[in-house]
């Protein structure tokens, strides 16, 4: 989106000087804010800029007030986190031609997307969330993008179940305990590929719901989100959902790529990452309020709908509570809108009245297994897995 009057269709400009002047005035008013913002990178230039925070060309966050209440996050507002720069856009020009190698099955082989489309189809709605979402709330300021709430979205993927692909190739070979996905990014010459390749392993228990997806929110997966083909693992944090997937291997052991062995580990503060530490895999129960967003909304005393999102990682959400006094007292919120399954998030809403003054609004979710969203984050060197309800509090000032 661009607010410059230069891009208005000609007929609008010709309507009259009043409209033209209004256009100029609006542009002048909005410009200063936009001028400071970093531009969207070319591969994501189609996204709706005012709804996003561009941290770097490979880290783009959805604004807290841009999630809406329609459950599914529109693709043009969805966050982007690429560990490596995306491959050339030519790979999405003909998605059907993309090939993925399937290994660790009885009859390993390469399959094109065209062939995958003949093997099965399934659709899943799920929360896609960067492992570092909420890192910006860590007082220790860990390395990496200081995301607050917007490195997440609820999206719909379509593709072929990985289990059906494995079955068609003779079944998973004996003794395999992991699914390893390898990204198709171009790696720099002169570097040990294992030191930079995006290659992640998840336990084979993720197989029943894993997809090789070619469609996102009803359209071919864009390059920015891993098209032509992405390994989709519902309930697992973003990094495990490997983009531009070029190889899927059933394996006896985890990948020894650096990003698996040492990257994305829950490392105690002040320690070095090691393969013995827990890997960032399944997401846990979490919620946050999106409105009021605390991003400068003008609030007047009186009735208000406090709304937000809640999810349980691999479990459905059972309950969401809201507090308007920073967590001292809690009341049940309503779950609103369609339930798109246990991997999707639920919208919640809470009707109340806010008096003039300062308020701290928080939400707390409970999943179907009885896990309650914790008050405190688990401190770790990488700033991963922040589900603290206190960190996600919204502070508002009511006039």
């Amino acid at each position, binding site marked *: 989106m661009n607010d410059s009057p230069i891009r208005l269709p000609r007929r609008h400009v010709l309507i009259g000087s009043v409209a033209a002047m209004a256009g100029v005035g609006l542009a002048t008013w909005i410009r200063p804010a936009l001028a400071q913002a970093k531009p969207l990178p070319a591969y994501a230039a189609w996204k709706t800029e005012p709804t996003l925070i561009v941290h770097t060309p490979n880290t783009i966050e959805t604004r807290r007030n841009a999630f809406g209440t329609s459950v599914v996050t529109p693709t043009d507002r969805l966050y982007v986190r690429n560990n*490596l720069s995306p491959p050339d856009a030519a790979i999405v020009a003909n998605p059907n031609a993309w090939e993925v190698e399937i290994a660790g099955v009885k009859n390993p082989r390469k399959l094109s997307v065209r062939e995958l489309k003949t093997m099965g189809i399934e659709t899943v709605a799920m929360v896609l969330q960067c492992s570092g979402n909420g890192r910006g709330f860590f007082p220790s300021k860990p390395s990496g993008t200081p995301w607050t709430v917007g490195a997440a979205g609820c999206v719909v993927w379509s593709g072929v179940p990985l289990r059906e692909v494995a079955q068609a190739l003779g079944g998973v070979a004996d003794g395999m305990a992991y699914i390893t996905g390898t990204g198709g990014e171009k790696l720099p010459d002169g570097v040990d590929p294992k030191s930079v390749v995006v290659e992640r392993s998840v336990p084979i228990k993720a197989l029943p719901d894993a997809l090789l997806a070619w469609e996102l929110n009803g359209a071919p997966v864009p390059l920015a989100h891993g098209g032509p083909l992405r390994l989709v693992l519902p309930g697992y944090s973003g990094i495990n959902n490997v983009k531009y997937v070029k190889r899927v291997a059933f394996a006896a052991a985890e990948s020894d790529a650096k990003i698996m062995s*040492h990257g994305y580990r829950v490392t105690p503060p002040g320690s070095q*990452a090691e393969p013995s530490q827990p890997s960032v895999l399944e997401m846990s129960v979490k919620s946050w309020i999106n409105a009021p967003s605390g991003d400068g909304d003008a609030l007047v005393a009186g009735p208000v709908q406090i709304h937000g999102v809640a999810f349980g990682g691999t479990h459905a959400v059972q309950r969401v509570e809201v507090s308007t006094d920073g967590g001292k007292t809690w009341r049940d919120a309503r779950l609103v809108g369609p339930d798109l399954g246990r991997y999707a998030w639920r919208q919640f809403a809470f009707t109340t009245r806010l008096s003039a003054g300062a308020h701290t609004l928080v939400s707390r979710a409970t999943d179907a297994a009885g896990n309650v969203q914790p008050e405190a984050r688990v401190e770790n060197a990488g700033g991963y897995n922040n589900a603290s309800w206190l960190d996600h509090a919204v502070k508002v000032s009511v006039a």
Partner: protein
Amino acid sequence: MTLRWRCALIAALSAPALAADDAQLAQGKQLFGSATPACALCHTLGDASAAGSVGPSLDELKPDAARVATALRNGVGSMPSYKATLSDAQIAALARYVARASGGEK
């Protein structure tokens, strides 16, 4: 002490400090191209004539020295840790250099 003497004394004391500073920056610049894997393979940094596009452009990111040092020690995302291959002094030199060259120095 006359003003002239005072100036001479300050110059005499700070010259070695400045030389050490330059040496550290030069060492950092050299490491930018020679660490394994070399920073320049993945990152863009105009001062080092580096145009890598795998990781973020340091000219755009403008990290301060503390941020670079933490990234070198712990790794970030797909960037590996250099803790095992670079000494503390080398990490400090590289961090100083990247902060200075990118304009991120505080």
